[in-house]
C-alpha cells in the first residue's frame, strides 16, 4: 500500500467499512509508518470534536413567528393578483384582445354594408364603381372587346349575300336609252 492508497482509505478505516483483507493491509501500513498512525488519530479526534459541537436551539418564539408569516402569506395567496383577475370570464389580456376584435369587426361591417344616402359615397361603393366593367365605359371595353357571335354569323352572311345579289341584279334598274 502506498501513501495515496492509505489516505484514500482513512475514512473507511475509521468508520469500519473496510473489508477484512483491506483492513489488515491498512493496519500493516500503520505499524510501518508512525506518522500515518498520528494522521489517523488526528482525523478521528477532529471527527469526534465536530460531533460534539454545541447545538444551537431555535428561539422560543420560532413557531409563533413562523405561523404569523404563514397567516400573512396565506392572505396574499388568497388575494387574486392582477393576472388572476377576470372580466366576464376573460383574463385582462384576452378581454382586451376580444374587445379590439369586436370593434374591428363592427367597423369593417359598417364600411361594407352602410347604404349611400346622398352624402359621401362609401369606400365599398367606390370599389364597386371602379372595378365592375360597364358598357358605357369605353376604357373598359377596350380592355374586354366584344367577342364575335359565331352562332348568328352564318345567317348574317346569307343576308349579306342576298343584299349583294340584289345589288348585282341590275335588270330592273337598267333602262335602255330607247325604252
Amino acid at each position, binding site marked *: 500500500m502506498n501513501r495515496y492508497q492509505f*489516505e*484514500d482509505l*482513512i*475514512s*473507511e478505516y475509521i468508520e469500519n467499512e473496510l473489508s477484512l483483507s483491506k483492513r489488515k493491509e491498512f493496519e500493516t501500513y500503520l505499524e510501518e509508518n508512525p506518522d500515518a498512525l498520528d*494522521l489517523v488519530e*488526528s*482525523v478521528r479526534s*477532529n*471527527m469526534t*470534536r*465536530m*460531533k460534539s*459541537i*454545541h*447545538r*444551537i*436551539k*431555535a*428561539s422560543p418564539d*420560532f*413557531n*409563533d*413567528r*413562523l*405561523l*404569523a*408569516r*404563514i*397567516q400573512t*402569506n396565506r392572505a396574499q*395567496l388568497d388575494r387574486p393578483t392582477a393576472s388572476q383577475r377576470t372580466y366576464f370570464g376573460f383574463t385582462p389580456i384576452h378581454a382586451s384582445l376580444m374587445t379590439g376584435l369586436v370593434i374591428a369587426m363592427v367597423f369593417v361591417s359598417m364600411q361594407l354594408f352602410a347604404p349611400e344616402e346622398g352624402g359621401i359615397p362609401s369606400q365599398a361603393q367606390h370599389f364597386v364603381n371602379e372595378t365592375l366593367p360597364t358598357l358605357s365605359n369605353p376604357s373598359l371595353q377596350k380592355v374586354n372587346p366584344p367577342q364575335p357571335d359565331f352562332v348568328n354569323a352564318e345567317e348574317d352572311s346569307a343576308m349579306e349575300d342576298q343584299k349583294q345579289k340584289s345589288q348585282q341584279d341590275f335588270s330592273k334598274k337598267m333602262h335602255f336609252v330607247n325604252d
Partner: protein
Amino acid sequence: MMRQNSSNLSDMSLDKQNTPFVYTDEQLIARFQNGDERAYIELVNRYRDRLINFVFQFLGDREQSEDVVQDTMLKLYVKKHYYREIAKFSTWLYTIARNLANTELRKRKRRKTTLLSHMTRDEKDYELPAIQPDTGAEVQSEFVEKLIQSAIQTLPEHFKTVIILRDIQELPYDDISSIVGVPLGTVKSRINRARLQLQAELKDLI
C-alpha cells in the same frame, strides 16, 4: 386572533399527544398534503433545530440562520404538493435549506464586494480580531469550536456541505448523496478529502 390561531396550531402538534405510535416524516408530509396542519407543526418541531445548526455552519450567524430556516419552513408550507415520495422527506427539506443558505451567502458576497468597492484605501486595511484561548474548560471548548468552524469555512463549497452533513448532522451517506445530487462514491471521496484538509488546517492550532 392570528396569535391565538398560531398558538392553537402549536398546541395541536402531533408530538404533544400521548400516543405510542410515532409517525414517520413521510407519513406526516402525506397528512399535511391532505390538509392536516398538525402534521406540519410536528415536522417543524422535528427539523427546526437540526436545520438551524446546519445553516449556521454556512452562515455563522444565529439570527440569519433562523431566518433562513423560517424561509425553508414557509417554503415547505407553500410548496407542500411539490414533494413526491420518491425521495426521503429529510433530504428534500435539507436541499431546500441548503439552496436558501447558498442564496444568502451569494447575497452576502455581493454586499461585501459593494461595501469594499466603496471604501477608501485606508479603510480597506483592517484587522480581524484574534481569538485568544482562555483558561476555563468551557471557554477552551468554545475556542476549539470556533477554530473548527472557521476551518470549515476555509473548505471549498463541495467539501464544506458534505462534511457538515456527515460529521455535524450525522446523516447517512445515501441521504447526503441525494441532498448534494452526486453519486455515493463521490460523496465518500469528498468527505475523506475534506477531513484530511480540515486536519491540515487544524493540526497547528489544536
